């Protein structure tokens, strides 16, 4: 370590009332390095990024940029200092078109366009209003906007979490090249694959404190996990499911039967069954109709054709309430869609069973309390800031969206990327939970953007491409390369490897 750090933060403290978000955080980034910032949900990663970029003010701490002490007072200030963040939540102005968003931040248009193309979106219309753009694309635009001004330090807060594999891959490529061209990147992710493929060093936070800085080298994952989780470590070990463990859906009548389902032009003739006690995975690239499939099953949008049967009886959903009454619960991938942010954890979890379904009268508070508490325990939600869900960290918010349906005892759960932005420890909990639900006879439809999750959780995988079901895998065949190929619409057994994930797999990487 002979070079001077580009960015050096020490002793950063931030408290929110009783909650200590950062106790004593430090971070030092060298020129040209891709530096991982790791930590469990609620460890304070996002808070640190916000402080470094002037979005919030720290209570204490020193920040030095290129060796100079500097008080970063606003995002505009950070930008002038060469620090550019992509926050965990999209920060394009929803009602402005992309072009205006660029103008607002003085971003040059041509480099932006070039980056957008580079990041795998060939046909962006910059007159489109940000509100109408899907979340994943929005994240990419946010990144392209940051890249276009050639920042010295790029801070990416869970940039890849909401991205489908194809886009995530491009992002990783681009970030790697940033490091190669002498710029620094602070990279937050819960995916070890990405960290090992990309980063030079990692700073690990636990409970708001920096507990270590390590060089990324083969085998370091175990140490990072140890540092991140501290005492929680022993709970996280769980191997991939073996084929023999897969439940055999012997039931004659499926829980959920979908036949020839169509939604506009996005979804064509989709048919499949979901058995009782089964976890069925759904794998697809961005925008292949999976959103519409889940929305239609959840009663959120009306299909334009086809039938849905629940327990053999045909149903028509005009409103999510109808689906819920049929025992179908939907956990959207974007937690801001699912949560009432100013309300307490308790109210959020209790909403469907205490209030929603025609129960407008008095609430049985004791019963509600015990159900909520058991759901919180089951998902290990960090309840330090439970009076308002918006004060929870991103991952804990995500858990609340699931806890709600555990408490409501929904029979069928549609999970849309439920592990988005969740730390390794909690991810394991969620896998275990989904399996437990299945063992209790419940059915789960599970869309995931992380292909390696499929073999850990699912009994079967449905691959969707271009709005059609292109393949249904038994779990033992659903390794990542195979899924990747199928997701690109290639026939099963094709030889060519697709994308960098294939490369990663050829090098031995220990999994946590």
């Amino acid at each position, binding site marked *: 370590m002979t070079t001077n750090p580009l960015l050096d933060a020490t002793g950063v403290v931030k408290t929110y009332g*009783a909650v200590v978000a950062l106790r004593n955080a430090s971070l030092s980034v060298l020129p040209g390095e891709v530096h991982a910032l790791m930590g*469990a949900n609620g460890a304070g990663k996002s808070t640190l990024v916000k402080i470094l970029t002037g979005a919030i003010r720290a209570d204490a701490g020193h920040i030095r940029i290129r060796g100079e002490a500097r008080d970063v007072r606003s995002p505009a200030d950070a930008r002038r200092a060469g620090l550019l963040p992509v926050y965990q939540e999209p920060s394009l102005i929803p009602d402005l078109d992309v072009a205006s968003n660029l103008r607002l931040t003085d971003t040059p248009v041509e480099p932006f366009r070039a980056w957008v193309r580079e990041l795998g979106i060939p046909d962006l219309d910059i007159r489109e209003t940000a509100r109408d753009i899907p979340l994943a694309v929005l994240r990419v635009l946010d990144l392209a906007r940051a890249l276009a001004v050639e920042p010295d330090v790029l801070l990416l807060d869970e940039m890849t979490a909401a991205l489908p594999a194809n886009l995530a891959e491009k992002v990783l490529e681009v970030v790697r090249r940033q490091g190669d061209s002498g710029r620094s990147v602070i990279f937050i992710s819960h995916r070890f694959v990405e960290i090992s493929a990309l980063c030079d060093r990692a700073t690990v936070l636990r409970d708001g404190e920096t507990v270590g800085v390590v060089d990324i080298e083969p085998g370091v994952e175990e140490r990072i996990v140890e540092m991140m989780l501290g005492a929680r470590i022993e709970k996280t070990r769980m191997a991939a499911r073996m084929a023999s463990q897969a439940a055999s859906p012997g039931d004659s009548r499926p829980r959920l039967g979908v036949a020839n389902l169509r939604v506009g032009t996005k979804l064509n003739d989709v048919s499949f069954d979901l058995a009782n006690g089964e976890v069925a995975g759904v794998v697809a690239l961005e925008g292949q109709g999976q959103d519409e499939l889940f929305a239609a099953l959840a009663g959120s949008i009306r299909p334009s054709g086809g039938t849905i049967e629940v327990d053999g009886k045909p149903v028509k959903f005009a409103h999510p309430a109808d689906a819920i009454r049929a025992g179908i619960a939907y956990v959207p991938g974007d937690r*801001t869609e699912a949560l009432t942010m100013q309300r307490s954890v308790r109210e959020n979890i209790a909403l469907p069973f205490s*209030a929603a379904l025609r129960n407008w009268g008095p609430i049985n508070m004791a019963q509600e309390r015990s159900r909520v508490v058991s759901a919180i325990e089951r998902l290990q939600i960090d309840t330090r800031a439970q009076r308002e869900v918006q004060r929870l960290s991103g991952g804990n918010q995500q858990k609340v969206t699931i806890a709600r349906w555990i408490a409501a005892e929904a029979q069928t759960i549609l999970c849309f990327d439920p592990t988005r932005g969740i730390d390794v420890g909690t991810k394991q909990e969620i896998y275990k939970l989904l399996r437990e639900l299945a063992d209790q006879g419940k059915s789960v439809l599970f869309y995931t953007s992380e292909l390696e999750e499929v073999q850990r959780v699912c009994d079967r995988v449905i691959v969707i491409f271009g709005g059609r079901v292109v393949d249904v895998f038994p779990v033992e065949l659903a390794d990542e390369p195979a899924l990747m190929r199928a997701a690109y619409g290639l026939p099963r057994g094709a030889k060519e490897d697709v994308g960098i994930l294939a490369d990663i797999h050829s090098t031995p990487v220990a999994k946590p």
Partner: protein
Amino acid sequence: MSTTAIQPVPSGRRLKRFMADRPLIPLIILLVILVVVLQILRPGIVNERWLANTVKFAIPLAILAGCQTMTMLTGGIDLSVGTVATMSAFIMATQVVNHDPAVAILIALVPAVLIGLVNGIGVGVFRVHPLIMTLGTSLIGTGCLQVYQRTVIASGAKIPPFLAWLGTGLTYGVPNALLLFVPIAVLIVFTLNRTGFGRLLYAVGDNEGAARLSGVRYWQVITALYVISSVLAGITGLLYIGLIKAPSLSLAEPLVLPSVAAAVIGGTSIFGGRGGYTGTIIGALILTVLTTLLTILQMPEGARRILFGLIVLFVTAAYLRIIEDR
């Protein structure tokens, strides 16, 4: 991970946090300060009779502010409460000439229910902005009242004695109006905190999409809400006419803006999802005491209004500072 971080905190911050957790306390302190100022300016004014008067005038305001609190929780506002209260008061006073008081009251509440229904359907089904919707129905209501008024000029008006008793009477120095208000207040507080409907109001106001995904039918909640708000406004009108005893076509209009202000001073967010009724009640009391304070002060009317505006701003800002936990 569910460990609670406990750290030594300086006592100033601890006091602040204590207040932030119990937002009612700073509000009550503000109210007490106003009363003390009043007592200093006019020694002897704070007596039993004054208290009774203040409560009497604060109650109609507090009920209307309750309508605002509930609608504001859903991100709405109900500007038609003034018109609805006026309509039910006027209609009751004119119908009671020919009908039994109970019948007259029922007749008087019909337009309240209708306006509430129209508001609810407009906001809940057609998604018209509540400000515009309730402003529109209040214009329509006023027009209808004017037309109605002409048909009853000949019949005159009367205030049933029991409404006058309720509105103006005292029992052992305690205003009878509390007989109506206490149950209403308890009901509102209970509804907001302990019933499914209350939860839905908060949920819908905070994130309508999320509420929908949890199975909430927006239009049902909103329609019920605006009907309830209107009926409460109608009841307020009946109480108010008992207090003022002079049916006029603009009886309760002057209460509309203060009712919004009372809810906001009481800590309810106009953007929805946050707030409660107990704060609103204190807010209504603060406004009523403030009005008294300014009436008593001898100064030009212009200066009086300036002072009113400044104090409302100061109280709200001070309150926000105190409860803000940052």
